[in-house]
């Protein structure tokens, strides 16, 4: 079973058209192995993106050097998934 230890989900709210364009470019970029949960739509609309552990530092640096603010929506995806599985198992019992 594929696990997601250390994967984080970022929430990024593009402030202007420049940031919007930057995020759109990221959608087509395979370098960071990003998984867009909520796609880039417009200025002021949140974009949610799952970032694998291996890409975390470089991705953060990529955003910070371009002055793009972000928050972490999910700190450790696997922890949330483990909890979800635990709840399912518990309910089934």
């Amino acid at each position: 079973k594929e696990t997601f230890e250390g994967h984080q989900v970022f929430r990024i709210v593009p402030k202007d058209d420049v940031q919007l364009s930057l995020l759109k470019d990221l959608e087509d970029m395979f370098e960071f192995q990003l998984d867009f949960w909520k796609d880039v739509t417009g200025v002021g609309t949140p974009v949610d993106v799952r970032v694998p552990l291996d890409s975390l530092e470089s991705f953060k640096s990529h955003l910070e050097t371009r002055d793009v603010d972000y928050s972490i929506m999910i700190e450790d995806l696997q922890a949330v998934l483990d909890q979800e599985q635990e709840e399912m198992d518990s309910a089934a019992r």
Partner: protein
Amino acid sequence: FAQPRNTDSYDYYNYHTISEIYRFQDMLVAENPNLVSKVVIGQSYEGRPLNVLKFSTGGTNRRAIWIDTGIHSREWVTQASGTWFAKKIVTDYGRDAALTAILDNMDIFLEIVTNPDGFYYSHTRNRMWRKTRKPNRGSSCIGVDPNRNWDAGFGGPGASSSPCSETYHGPSAHSESEVKSIVDFVKSHGNIKAFISIHAYSQMLMYPYGYTRTAVKDQAELHAVAQRAVSNLASLYGTRYRYGSIINVIYQASGGTIDWTYNQGIKYSYTFELRDTGRYGFVLPASQIVPTARETWLALMTLMDHTFKNPY
């Protein structure tokens, strides 16, 4: 593990595997033989049945409403909501005047697990799986985005030609059996008047088009009905939805489900993006399933009631 003996003891407050949902469907049919039947419209790539629940009080080829959930497999709250909707329909028929009037005149088709291979895979191997599970020739990447695989601007902007992309449109329109089976069903039925495809998450209710900026000819009506639907949805818990055409509310997306259905003449073609708490994304806690389904039901009823009262 205890299995529910009937649909009353089914746990609507938790997520379930595909076999549990299949069992739920069979129980619902067995408990309500005069109202519910199971139609198998095809098979998935891996050979799973594509089950559709038909809610009908009789008649032949009545006007019908289609609802599907879970075409993107990782959006678990949609399959869970679909299960709740199925139970809600049998519970409310004969009790709720609006739903009773609809079902006395129209049929409802509900496909709870629209992408069963992907759903099974999301439970067993990769919780984040979104696409179908058909291998792609010449690529090690698996699957197609079934919401980019329809013959409506197929292969245009807003879909990827890379099999490794999450929005890969597939080798040709309707290449995925999960899509083709619905296409064949809709065409052979010929009397579907509303088509509602349910996704998660980001709280939106949308109508065509996604592949072109051209406004649909029924835009004014679809917009007004969407406004009413999201207002009714919000009346329960205050959940706020955005609404409009796909291309205006989200972005350009070609090969989408409801663009195809609208072009087939199904005027009331809508797609939902369900509740987003801003904290969990696709891993919405199970405690949110029933509230999500309850509020969505109010919007669904608005769409279904409007379809019933505005024959075309």
